């Protein structure tokens, strides 16, 4: 398929710019996942039994109290069909429920039924998917959640103003590779019901897809698969005050300032295998400088002890403090940033010669680049396109290179090139961090005789600049992620020669790969599909279209009185529904 709209990858990168520079906290006290080489995702999909509530209790947890959540920036959207960012997915678990969701038990995530009794059953090679809603799942006003509500929610993703959400439902349900085309076929709830989804009764949903779809269970876990009740759909206002189905409901929300959550009486623990309901209230405070928020949490002053952050990471300014002071160190919560991978993207149109790319790979001073951003605490060096967080992931390294770069080897490789590049332009976000990394690259590549011209670009304009079809830059760094923990949205998106430069930012063109993609997309069984995609990934990596840098690590802080904090293995932020106050 050809996609005309960017994947989560891009947004993720955008998010990174808004949150402050990459986090810290060495793998030493990183919470489990980061150091392992295998996926944190349990391959098997949850059964009906797994999907039954209540959620496995968090050891030592006690109810009561108010948890403060600091964040420098407000979530961009709360409307479930507009949400399209890991941190918001993570937070929205507090008030929103989806058809499926990830159940997390000591760092291991398993996809189970959430509103649905299971992760869905498919027939006719994955063209038809059926879900049954659980008994007793209800809205915050006590009314039961019906299949109509779910259907209406998914219908909304077609509507005007919902372009900001993921494009998959419309594309899959209409079989249109192009989102606009899909919307042309069906223009959202205003245009009446969507035939592709049947609701034979109040608890049953049947999806009909023109093509086989293997990833429906994972898509069903996305925020855009949340129910919305027609009579509660307040349009724009819904983006501020969504109607709750989860363990908490939003009782107050002042844009860019604060948001207060209270227990949702209508939520029944026995229906929910994922979420807990320990604290009485969550109070989100926005607009506090990340550094200040972190310092308050460390000092424990005014509410800091009961606080954590939604997506603000441990400020680099505080690395030393947390390293030297053990008590501060304890408060750092580290884990892999979901399925993100950071890489040095090469514009393959401008640098077509694979030998040159190989030379770059050999000269690439990965370790120094990581050092100026905080060192190993910011992530572990990568060799693959896919993240260890993915289903059935296996480590491999087709182009071994010294982490600190090997100028000599690079020179040798360069000698093989048809003609050595004159100068390469490196575009970077004009932030202190960006400038330093740029210096590292100029220095490192320079040693191998490759002149790199650093081009500072305004952070906000960065993605537009480097993704423009006629973008004049040869190299730039990008941190991106698949939309859900299977490889399905990796190669078929970012390395599809037919995709636009906004998605295929490496401008990688390989007809053979494209053919493979089309073939694999027809596979309806998730794990089989994944296996094929990993194989394909290796074919791509032989051409070195991009140079993997690291699997980033998230470091956040939690107050000394906050228990049960860990980085959600899928969403890459402190999982809020598992938190409790120690006293």
């Amino acid at each position, binding site marked *: 398929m050809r996609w005309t709209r960017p994947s989560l990858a*891009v947004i993720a990168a955008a998010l990174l710019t808004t949150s402050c520079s990459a986090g810290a906290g060495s793998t030493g006290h990183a919470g489990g996942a980061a150091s392992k080489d295998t996926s944190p995702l349990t391959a098997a999909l949850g059964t009906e039994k797994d999907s039954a509530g209540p959620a496995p209790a968090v050891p030592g947890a006690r109810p009561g109290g108010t948890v403060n959540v600091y964040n420098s920036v407000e979530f961009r959207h709360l409307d479930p069909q507009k949400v399209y960012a890991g941190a918001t997915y993570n937070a929205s678990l507090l008030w929103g429920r989806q058809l499926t969701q990830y159940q997390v038990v000591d760092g291991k995530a398993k996809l189970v039924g959430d509103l649905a009794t299971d992760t869905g059953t498919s027939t006719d090679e994955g063209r038809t998917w059926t879900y049954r809603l659980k008994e007793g799942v209800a809205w915050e006003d006590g009314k039961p959640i019906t299949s109509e509500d779910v259907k209406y929610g998914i219908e909304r993703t077609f509507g005007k103003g919902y372009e*900001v959400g993921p494009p998959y439902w419309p594309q899959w349900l209409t079989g249109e590779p192009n989102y606009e085309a899909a919307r042309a076929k069906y223009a959202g709830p205003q245009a009446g019901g969507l035939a592709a989804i049947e609701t034979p009764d109040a608890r049953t949903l049947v999806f009909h897809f023109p093509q086989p779809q293997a990833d429906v269970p994972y898509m069903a876990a996305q925020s855009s698969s949340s129910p919305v009740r027609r009579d509660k759909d307040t349009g*724009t206002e819904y983006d501020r005050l969504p109607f709750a189905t989860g363990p908490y409901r939003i009782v107050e929300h002042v844009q860019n300032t604060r948001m207060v959550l209270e227990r949702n009486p209508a939520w029944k623990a026995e229906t929910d295998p994922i979420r807990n309901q320990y604290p009485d209230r969550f109070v989100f405070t926005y*607009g506090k*400088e990340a550094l200040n928020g972190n310092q308050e949490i460390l000092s424990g002053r*005014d509410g800091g002890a009961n606080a954590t952050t939604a997506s603000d990471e441990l400020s680099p300014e505080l690395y030393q403090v947390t390293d030297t002071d053990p008590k501060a160190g304890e408060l750092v919560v580290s884990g892999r940033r979901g399925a993100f991978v950071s890489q040095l993207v090469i514009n393959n149109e401008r640098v077509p010669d694979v030998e040159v790319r190989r030379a770059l790979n050999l000269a690439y001073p990965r370790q120094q680049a990581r050092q100026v951003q905080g060192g190993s605490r910011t992530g572990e060096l990568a060799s693959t396109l896919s993240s260890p967080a993915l289903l059935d992931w296996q480590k491999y390294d087709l182009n071994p290179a010294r982490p600190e770069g090997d100028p000599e080897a690079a020179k040798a490789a360069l000698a093989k090139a048809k003609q050595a590049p004159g100068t390469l332009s490196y575009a970077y976000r004009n932030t202190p961090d960006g400038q330093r990394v740029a210096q590292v690259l100029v220095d490192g590549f320079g040693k191998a005789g490759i002149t790199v011209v650093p081009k500072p670009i305004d952070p906000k*304009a960065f993605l537009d600049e480097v993704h423009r079809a006629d973008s004049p830059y040869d190299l730039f760094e990008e941190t991106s992620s698949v939309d859900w923990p299977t490889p399905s949205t990796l190669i078929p998106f970012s390395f599809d020669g037919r995709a636009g430069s906004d998605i295929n930012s490496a401008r990688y063109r390989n007809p053979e790969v494209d053919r493979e993609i089309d073939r694999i997309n027809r596979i309806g069984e998730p794990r089989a599909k994944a296996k094929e995609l990993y194989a394909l990934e290796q074919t791509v990596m032989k051409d070195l279209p991009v140079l993997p840098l690291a699997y980033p690590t998230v470091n956040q802080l939690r107050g000394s009185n906050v228990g049960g904090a860990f980085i959600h293995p899928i969403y890459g932020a402190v999982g809020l529904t598992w938190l409790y106050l120690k006293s």
Partner: protein
Amino acid sequence: MLTFVLRRTLQALGVLLAVSAAAFALFYAAPADPARAACGPRCDSGQIAAVRQSMGLDQPLLTQYTEYLAGVVAGRDINDVDGSAIHCAAPCLGYSYRLHQPVAEALADHLPVTLSLTAGALAVLLVLGLGTGFVSALRHGRRTDRLLSGFTLVGASVQIYFLGYLAQWWLVHSTGLLPLPSYTPPTEDPAAWAGGMLLPWLVLGFVNSAVFARLSRSQLLETMNEEYVRTARAKGLGRLRAHLKYTSRGAAGPLVQLLGLEAGALLGGAVISETVFGLNGVGRFAAQAVSGQDLPAVVGAVLLAACFVVLFVALADLAVAWLDPRIRLGR
């Protein structure tokens, strides 16, 4: 006096109008496409076009400006990126597509921080500046004078973004004498408010008091030689009393004027001071708006700051006029 007040007010309004026009032209004529910036990286051409329209960027600059002004006076309706209509009440300074919030509102959220910062700093400035100025004028030429002058000169030369951090390191991190700079609404907890603002107040006050101290010193010295001060002493008034009653009165004018400027400058300099102390006031807001290419917000912030400068200068002028009977009562 009345005509003076009227004239001064008209003048101020004129300046503000010009400032707004200049800011508008400057930023909306900038190369980076405001619509694209506002819409964010994921907008396709269609949405950008829509935003451009709702921002009114498809119209000539002049029309945009007039509409903007109209909005300031009467408020107006604006479409968000996703096409949803938002009413932006007067005074409407445009709509921030980055925050999905009317700029005026956003500014209002941040203003209290900046205001408390400025107010406190001004207080410190006044006490410190006047104090040192008066003392060194009285002890003119002696050691005390030289000492104080040196002190103020250091104040005039040190940069807030150095002293601020140094103070934090020493008073907060190594000794823990003062709490971290932070803002708590005084309505919630006055003590915490003062505590959190104390360090910024002191540092900012000290740095900015330098100029004030220097001026007050020279002013007082100049006025001390005024003949009416000599007359006062010839009446049998003591030196100190003569200076307190007559000299200070004579020196007041320029000082008040400077105070006005300082107040304006403090708000303008909020960008740096708030960065240094990590306070999320208008300054930070503006800085973030700039880096976020949030043009409506930038223009809004610039206008606000300009407003304050003009306002304070005007107030100062009026105060001076009122202080001086020759103007108050007319010739």
